């Protein structure tokens, strides 16, 4: 079954140009989730079909994943000017392959809250983004010592320079030293001050983006509470909030 020409729903008349449901009695797809748009239903139907129809749908989905991965690559090319184009193409292809596997394994998770293509794109963009961030930082050192604050303060740089100009650096340093655990200090300094990409740090520390962000969130809350006592920042507004 050839995929229909796709039309965007945003700001356009609905119904025209959308695919038809698969009606071949030899195909017994599961029904699409209620509320899914027609193009989403088409994707779910053909990806759950058998034989050649599914093969063609998977190939078409891989094209979409590759398109998204190359889109992400084009957005990051400036930061990757030191990397050969052939290697970047390989990264995009690998990201598309990994995203395809992720989408196919998670088809039952799609609930039709967005268009299927929007849902699928995010997997390719995530895979490509993570791989490209890590590649961009591959030759760069990441200081992970709990006392890296000292190095940071001496080295200077973007965030540090901005804080120093408003004389807040000392206040922040005191709060970091007194309120944070060594692990929180290590993560906060790397992510918030040295602006190390979280996917780079997760690789170096062998952990996940979510786990690192939880640590960052907890550190931020502690620092904000400390600095708010001095009237330097707004206080936390959600003491029961969580992060991750």
């Amino acid at each position: 079954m050839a995929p229909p020409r796709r039309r965007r729903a945003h700001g356009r008349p609905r119904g025209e140009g959308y695919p038809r449901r698969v009606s071949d009695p030899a195909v017994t797809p599961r029904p699409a989730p209620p509320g899914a748009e027609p193009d989403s239903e088409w994707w779910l139907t053909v990806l759950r079909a058998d034989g050649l129809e599914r093969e063609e749908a998977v190939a078409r989905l891989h094209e979409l994943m590759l398109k998204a991965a190359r889109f992400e690559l084009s957005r990051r090319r400036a930061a990757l000017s030191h990397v050969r184009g052939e290697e970047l193409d390989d990264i995009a292809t690998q990201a598309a392959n990994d995203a395809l596997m992720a989408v196919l394994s998670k088809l039952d998770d799609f609930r039709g809250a967005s268009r299927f293509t929007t849902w699928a794109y995010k997997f390719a963009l995530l895979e490509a983004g993570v791989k490209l961030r890590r590649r961009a930082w591959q030759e760069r050192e990441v200081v992970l010592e709990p006392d890296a604050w000292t190095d940071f303060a001496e080295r200077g740089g973007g965030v540090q320079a901005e804080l120093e100009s408003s004389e807040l650096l000392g206040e922040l340093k005191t709060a970091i030293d007194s309120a944070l655990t060594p692990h929180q200090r290590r993560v906060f300094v790397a992510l918030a001050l040295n602006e190390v990409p979280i996917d780079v740090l997760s690789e170096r520390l062998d952990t996940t983006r979510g786990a690192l962000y939880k640590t960052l969130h907890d550190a931020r809350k502690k620092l904000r509470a400390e600095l708010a006592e001095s009237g330097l920042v707004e206080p936390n507004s959600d003491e029961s909030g969580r992060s991750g």
Partner: protein
Amino acid sequence: MSASDHRNDGTLERVLGPTGFEVTCEQCFELLDQYVDLELNGADADAHLPGLRAHLEGCPACREDHDSLRALVVSDGS
């Protein structure tokens, strides 16, 4: 410098992240496609999915993922 001067410092607020409720990175990824489609359909995405915008403000990686997804979907329709 007075406390009120410090309070106006945007860099420190940015370093310390959002003050209120925010979703996790995992929840952000789970909801990101819905959020983007809501945005592009002109709906109030923040009202539908509270805590996601705050997370995007606090997490540069998720914000980049959002910006890329939104740009890609927009480019699809152009």
